[in-house]
């Protein structure tokens, strides 16, 4: 019965995708895997510090960085509500959520399925409309913005990383990376672009099309795309959901480094405690409300906290 449903278009394709990606990875030769691993190290190991001097943010200590920017808010939700449907079928996805996302900070949003974590991200990123309250990106109030303005805002101030990579198969890796700037009709900053490309370890693969890249490489292209236009804030929606653990670690490492070393602001939705442990701060959501917050999380602490939700659920 389940098998039949899986095959229909309405079935769960996500299951299938996950089966698929490792399968594709397996086809790659050892060489590629090795490069891959080296790239991952470049992002995570402090030994690569030779590059750091050229990064705009000089400090390497995360604590100092956070302290410097703690006052500046990159995005803010105030009593943000999101309601789907009407009357009997009404579902409150977000119930007066108020939260600040600080500049140069890596925030993870966690919560069980249906907690509203994705909805919160979508509303903050101007992808979905808001039922009540306010959402701001920098100084810009999102509520009441027309589609055109909202699109411009996303284009100029926000970067996106999706679970399913979402690259254009017809464009090369490089063209995918510069896509937001091409849309805006801006010339990319060459030096910066080179730096980003090098950081994510894609230098040799810029002419490849997505179908010629592994899942991890594809997601690195997506990370580069988000970084390349220097947005005020990057929203990542389960960026490691479709990746094996090694590739996932790489991508998360890049995101953390971009925050530490480039002063980038990142907000990431995830359900994976390990992924959340890369963040500076975790915001826990349940039933459309913020229920907890955790600074400097570790995977174990987050897992503990999440278990708490589950047991609470079971008991209630």
């Amino acid at each position: 019965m389940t098998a039949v449903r899986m095959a229909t278009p309405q079935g769960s394709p996500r299951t299938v995708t996950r089966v698929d990606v490792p399968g594709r990875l397996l086809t790659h030769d050892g060489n590629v895997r090795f490069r891959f691993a080296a790239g991952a190290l470049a992002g995570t190991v402090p030994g690569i510090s030779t590059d750091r001097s050229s990064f705009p943010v000089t400090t390497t200590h995360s604590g100092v960085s956070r302290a410097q920017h703690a006052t500046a808010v990159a995005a803010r939700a105030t009593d943000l509500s999101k309601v789907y449907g009407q009357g009997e079928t009404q579902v409150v996805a977000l119930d007066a959520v108020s939260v600040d996302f600080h500049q140069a900070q890596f925030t993870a949003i966690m919560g069980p399925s249906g907690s509203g974590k994705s909805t919160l991200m979508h509303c903050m990123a101007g992808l979905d409309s808001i039922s009540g309250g306010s959402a701001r990106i920098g100084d810009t109030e999102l509520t009441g913005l027309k589609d055109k303005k909202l699109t411009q805002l996303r284009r100029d101030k926000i970067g996106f990383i999706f679970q399913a990579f979402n690259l254009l198969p017809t464009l090369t890796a490089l063209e995918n990376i510069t896509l937001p700037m091409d849309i805006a009709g801006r010339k990319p900053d060459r030096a910066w672009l080179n730096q980003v490309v090098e950081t994510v370890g894609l230098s040799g693969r810029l002419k490849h099309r997505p179908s010629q890249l592994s899942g991890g490489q594809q997601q690195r292209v997506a990370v580069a795309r988000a970084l390349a236009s220097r947005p005020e804030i990057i929203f990542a929606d389960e960026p490691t959901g479709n990746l094996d653990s090694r590739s996932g670690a790489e991508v998360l490492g890049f995101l953390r480094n971009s925050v530490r070393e480039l002063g980038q602001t990142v907000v990431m939705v995830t359900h994976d405690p390990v992924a959340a442990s890369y963040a500076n701060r975790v915001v826990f959501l349940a039933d459309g409300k913020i229920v907890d917050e955790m600074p400097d999380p570790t995977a174990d602490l987050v897992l503990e906290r999440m278990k708490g939700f589950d047991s609470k659920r079971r008991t209630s």
Partner: protein
Amino acid sequence: MFRTALRNVLAHKARLLMTVLAVMLGVAFVSGTLVYTDTLSTAFRNSSQKSYDDIDVALNPQASDTVPGVQPENPRLDAKLLDTVRRAPGAAFATGIVNGPTGIADKSGKLIGQGGSGSNYFPGKDGKDARYPMKEGAAPTRGDQFALDQDTAEKGGYHVGDTVRMSVDGPVREQKLTGIFTTGGGQGMSGGSLALFDTKTAQKLLGVPGGFSEIDVKAAPGTSQAALKQSVGKALPRDSGTLTTGKELADDQAEGNKTSMDTMRTALLAFAGVSLFVGIFIIANTFTMLISQRTKELALLRAVGASRRQVTRSVLLEALVVGTIAGASGMVAGIGIGAVLRTLGGNDGAALPDGPLQVTATTVLVSLGVGIAVTVLSAWLPGRRAAKIPPVAAMNSVHAAATTKSLVVRNTIGALFAGAGTAAVLVAISLDDGKNTSRYMMGLGGMLLLVGVFVLTPLLSRPLIALGGPVLRGFGISGLLARQNALRNPRRTAATASALMIGLTLITGMTVIAKGVETGINNVAASSLKADYSIAMSSEGQPLPSTAEKQVKGAAGVSAVSPMRKDMVRVGAGAGAGSKGASMVVGVDGKTFGSLGNLDFTKGSLGSLHGDRVVVDSGTARDHGLKTGSRFPVTFPDGKKADLTVSGVYNGNQMFDGIILDKDTLASHQKRTTTQQLLVSMDGGATDAHKNELVKALGKNPALTVSDKQDIADAVSKLFTILLNMLYGLLGMAVVVAVLGVVNTLAMSVFERSQEIGMLRAIGLDRLGIKRMVRLESLIISLFGGVLGIGLGVFLGWAVGKLIEGGLPTYELVLPWGELAVFLGLAGLVGVLAALWPALRAARLNMLEAIKAE
């Protein structure tokens, strides 16, 4: 399995909509044609039966058997013969009928319609002619009176008591309208006007003095048509004419109508075939896309144990359901089209007889059959491809990445076809024997080439679309994406563009040919006519009034006049029957012809055309082995033989053809001369004043046309414009179907790429940018099809023109740049229109759902 197929059709309703529409249009064309021609056929049959109700036996003048196919000289059906027929046993009543061309002028002096005929009012015993019931006024009884049919009276705004100008045989007449009658049936069918005179006047005005053109006999009660025919035959002197029963006449006419209906039906069905052919591409495209979207589902069927054949069958079953729906709706639409056409046809001057709409079982079966067959056959290849999906694909990737299977095999086949086709076309041109071999070769070559180009379209898409790159770059990222999307699936782009290509190939080819022929004919008029004016009847083929030549000669400023009198003779010594050896002769004024016509002599010259000296066109010369100086025997219409001497051989054309001889030589063998055309030159050439002078000299005869070279060119170009417009209208359907194809492809592509579109929206491409991207893709595909179609059309037009050159040496390849630009614009318009809805859909896509959907 059937349930799965039905479910699939229902699940993909929207995506199958364009396919259904495409098939439906083609089927509607077919069933509309069948319904319309059936309806007309039946109506014609009924009306011809009705029009011969009054006739039991008809007596017509005997056809001349001395020269086959030649109309008899002066009919000798006179009053005496009428009396004999009337007194034959079994005859109740006999009507002597006089027929001749009569043109009625409207109040401004212009001919009403295309001219018409005149006849006589033949009162019966009750003083009335049953064939023409008077609606207003009374029948004509005096020489200055006449009656007119109701339609023409209405068109001319005439009422009883008005004086009406008309053209008959002789000078223009003014007759007083005494009555307006209705035509009971058959007569109105010809669509022309009908004027009635009393019998004596009709004989005088219509050129049958003292005689009749036909005698119709009504049988006494109890006498059969066959018996009457026999008894009349006995009563008549030998060789007085041919007897035919009313039934035979009706059958003959019905047969004639049927033949012309069949021709019309075949022509219309050919165009319907083009539309259906275009539809095939759309169906195949749709099913290919649906199957690639359903790869996993089909693989699952295979995984749980369905055989390959079952998978193919399930796809074909889907096609069957779609085809049935499309066929049935197309049939219904076609019946509607048939009904509309009948109403339109009735209003179009050429009055068509009324009759109930005919929907036969054949129509129903053919429509449904065509709809189903086309759909199922088109889905067959995609169905086979579906069966090749391995079961493991069920566990595999999200979208089985569009198999970019190598196009090598396809390109090789395409190149072979295109090469063979081009070769055949070129061979046909070099062969050019004026016979069917080269024509068949050309047809075959054209087909092969067309197929070859179809097969090669995916290969051609890359370089041709790349040509548009610089322009697209101007549209920024939308242009870049559009271009890459268009190239993404070359097969799909190719099939979509091909659908448009077919229509444009035909449209362009026909335009190029028509323009070439038009120029060719104008060249003929310009090069072979020295005369300033040509005078002929407005309705083609009718003889000029017998007084016309004299009238023209009396006009001021006329320097030379020659009539052209066409007749048939038989060339050769043999007296055998059959049409072999029949040849056209043209009697001209031997003294003036040299200054009026310009013949293209291959041998000899015009010399002095008199007595037995003639010039012969090269075709006739070849057929009979004639050379300059040859003497050859001919049999004239009067049965007398004479020897003629060739003084020159010329290339015949549309203006001059056949054996040209002095009119006096011909006249000595004719009881009555008829002139088809007058060539006139005037001192000072063609001017408006001179033309007016001629028109005035001819008594402002409404049925005559005085044309200078420019008028001839205008008339030719008008004719071709009408012809081309008709073709455009008929091929328009194929273009409409192609538009559906583009809409279909775009809608499918938008659906398939919804995730990408959602991502583009998320990272900041606004709605306008998305719309522009879809529109540009549509424009690229359409222009690609347009360029291919126009290119191929020009090539085929050129090739066919080479063959036409054999029969029309003045044919000239004219590239109608204006038209070609319009066609390309049309292709662009198709692209823009087709993108309207898909672009809107793409722009309105819900970003979040699109990104999540996989």
